[in-house]
């Protein structure tokens, strides 16, 4: 019997540069890897807003039992701009990734302004 290995965390594209330049804060973090043979969902210490890897499923029969590995978490990016850097009415297009099967969670976006 062999348990499954945890999935790798999502990565950020190399040397990323936002298309709107000169942010005041720019953070990018690779996602945490999943856990070998784990039914528990993978969490990330990076931020509460992460794509969470699904837990591995357990299986057993007359020959034994094994558990799949949990999926890796998605990568994370945070970009902050100062006053006037993004004008009112500017359209910010985005794409959100779909959850991996099975039991991963979708990616997401959160925009906060003050």
């Amino acid at each position, binding site marked *: *019997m062999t348990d*499954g290995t945890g*999935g*790798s*965390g*999502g*990565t*950020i594209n190399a040397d*990323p540069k936002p*298309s709107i330049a000169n942010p005041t804060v720019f953070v*990018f973090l*690779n*996602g945490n*890897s*999943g856990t070998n043979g784990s039914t528990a969902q993978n969490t990330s210490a990076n931020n509460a807003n*992460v*794509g969470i*890897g*699904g*837990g591995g*499923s357990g*299986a057993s029969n007359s020959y*034994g*039992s094994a*558990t*799949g*590995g*949990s*999926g*890796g*978490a*998605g*990568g*994370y*990016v*945070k970009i902050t*701009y100062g*006053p*006037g*850097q993004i004008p*009112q009415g*500017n359209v*910010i*297009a985005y*794409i*959100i*990734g*779909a959850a*991996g*099967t*099975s039991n*991963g*969670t*979708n*990616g*997401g*976006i959160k*925009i906060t*302004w*003050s």
Partner: protein
Amino acid sequence: MPTTPGVPGGALPFSGPLDIAAINSEWGLGTDLAVYHGARWYYDGNLTTGLFGGDTIRVSDFRGKRATDPASGGTYFSNTAGSGSYTTSLYRNSITIEIWGAGGGGGGGNGGAGGKGGDSNVLSVTAGGGSGGGAGNIPVPPPPADVTVRGEGGHEIVITREALTIPGTDVVFGYRDTNLTTGSFTDVDAATGNTLGTGNKNDVLG
């Protein structure tokens, strides 16, 4: 009509008629302009703000201004897979964009790895999705071999061997001819006809 905080538009006109009643409607401080000393004003549509001051406040000092901040604060959130967009509000201090890739799927307990989570993208920066977890594996022992046995009466019958394993492992330590019911037997290699061994009912052959 007074302006609405956080919503651009509705400031007093830059040109044309402007009276004290319109000023009072916006600020609500009355018709004596002297009391407007120290009152805050905002230009509509941008981040400029200030206080009324000087020795004399004139009606013209109010042109293009409003009493409430047209900039706002707020939060936009989405975790719906696919394409989307957000149109920025007028903000005063900062705007923060966070984005994250999808989580990979969990692996199956006995075959079937999890699927990769999808990538997310904003402002040309991609947050990759996590990889799926690997599958677990429960190996199945090799199927029992069918052997030809020459019985006591000279007839040949085909019996089935059951693999005997150590519980909880896949280690096979022997085989037992499960449908041999009586008497002894001689184990014959079906391919060569050579005698492999002899035994009695429930004997275990290594």
